[in-house]
């Protein structure tokens, strides 16, 4: 059996929230403000990052039962950040004062900073897709000004992803049943080549049937969503708090200085 496929969670398990009264565009812009603020903090600014956890927590409160999958997925990806940042504690050993009386080597502070940033950025993005339907988010990116060929391709990608993953799974399972073991590069190339031909045929079928129903290159949305006063208020609160804290926090919580 193909182990990688088994490890990939079904896309619907992670994304596919429900229609909320909150506009996904407000959520998306709020996410960008939060991530930008988090990323723009200095390398050793560890403590001022924590209030930003309010954003994913707030989002996950909108739809109950989504926090578990989001937390599991975020932690599953954590080793990536650990791998890249793990050298910091060994390379940067100058002691710095994190709080009055709390002195830590600079490398440990910046390493912890990387991990907290990772949890915040990945957790917030996953929380956003966990509470809003993915197609609605894509339409929100269209309203943000992303070019329509990209957003249309994204909608098709989302629609046919599970189908193609299933097809790949069937092909690798059929191969494993006959030959066993992991495929060599030659048989993997054969599987991928065949998958391409099958996908192309499927795509042409889909295209032809869409044309026969009057498809003219545009994917119409059933209703045109507009930002309401509540959406603007949510966005102003989110972005204002995120950017405001970014500007004010360094005054209240100074960056850890080298211990003299």
């Amino acid at each position, binding site marked *: 059996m193909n182990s990688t496929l088994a490890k*990939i969670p079904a896309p619907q398990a992670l994304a596919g929230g429900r229609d909320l009264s909150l506009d996904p565009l407000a959520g998306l812009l709020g996410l960008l403000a939060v991530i930008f603020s988090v990323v*723009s903090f200095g390398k050793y600014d560890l403590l001022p990052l924590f209030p930003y956890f309010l954003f994913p927590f707030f989002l996950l409160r909108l739809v109950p039962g989504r926090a578990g999958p989001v937390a599991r997925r975020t932690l599953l990806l954590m080793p990536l950040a650990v791998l890249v940042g793990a050298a910091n504690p060994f390379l940067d050993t100058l002691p710095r004062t994190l709080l009055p009386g709390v002195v830590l080597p600079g490398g440990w502070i910046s390493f912890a900073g*990387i991990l907290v940033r990772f949890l915040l950025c990945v957790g917030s*993005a996953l929380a956003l897709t966990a509470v809003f339907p993915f197609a609605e988010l894509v339409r929100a990116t269209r309203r943000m000004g992303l070019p329509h*060929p990209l957003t249309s391709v994204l909608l098709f990608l989302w629609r046919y992803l599970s189908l193609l993953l299933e097809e790949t799974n069937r092909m690798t399972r059929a191969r494993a049943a006959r030959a066993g073991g992991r495929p060599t590069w030659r048989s993997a190339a054969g599987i991928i080549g065949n998958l391409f031909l099958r996908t192309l045929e499927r*795509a042409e079928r889909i295209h032809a049937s869409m044309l026969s129903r009057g498809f003219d290159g545009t994917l119409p949305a059933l209703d045109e969503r507009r930002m309401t006063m509540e959406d603007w208020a949510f966005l102003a609160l989110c972005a204002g708090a995120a950017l405001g804290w970014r500007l004010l926090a360094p005054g209240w919580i100074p960056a850890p200085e080298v211990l003299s």
Partner: protein
Amino acid sequence: MHMEDSLLSPGVALTFLAVSAFAVGISSKKVASEEGEESRLPLTGVLAAFVFAAQMVNFKIPGTGSSGHFVGSLLLAVLLGPARAMICMAAVLLLQALVFGDGGVLALGCNFFNMGLVGALGGWWVYKLLAGKAPGPGRKSWSAALAAWISVVAGSVMVVVETTLSGRVDLAFLPFLELMVGIHCLIGIGEALITFGVVAFLSRARPVLLEESRGVGKLEIGLGILTLVVGGLLSLYASPLKDGLEHALGKMGWSEGTAGKYETWLHHLAARIQQALSFLPDYKWTSLSGILGAALTFLAVTGGLWLVLRKGRKKGEGPR
């Protein structure tokens, strides 16, 4: 090869985001302007899902005992042409960032640059260079394989450059580069073998698929390079990036005393621009002016993009 937000500084992230937005804008314009291409978008969309599915096929890398998987941006560029391949890669990366948490949202610019621009467009140029005019099936296969290997290795170099410029990680530039390039030279072999196999298979099974695919056009290439240069110069002024660069130079043994030797006209120009634009020179405000600088860079480049694409957008206004 996916970059995370936590390893990037805003200056680096926004600069690459602007360059990537430019490339996606040009590719979209190109795809939308091709005769009948708009109605062929479902085809492109389903093929983007193919890339995603193909990345799930795990295989043995001969001689190493480890397994690898496939990135596929070069294969897609050979099959669909670089413009549609870049749209597919942008869509795949966006989905991965939002739904699966692979690669950050702000890091999308870097990831698209490494895998879409370098992988699809850069790789496709290498492929064209190697394959020449009217290549046979054999030459097509090995040209695609070599181009795939080069695009993976070049992408990994960009990861190191972006990480070092951001200055969040203390790894020195050269050892980090050796490590990443070393690993990706091996990973690239897997990519090259699969690309070789698939191109050989398809040129036997469906030769018509591998016929001439058109590029992105000379004007756009020129504009792309111009954006890159302008974006790079402006971002040198953004302090987070500058700090990162100094940090990298310091790590490589170029302390302040010896740095003078390496100064070029580029550094002078960057310093001039920085001086002229530093409207918040007070030390306390450095990080703020850095952030504003990065935002200004972003606005300048996207403004340029808007000016270039304005004409095309009126014509190709699509759905909402």
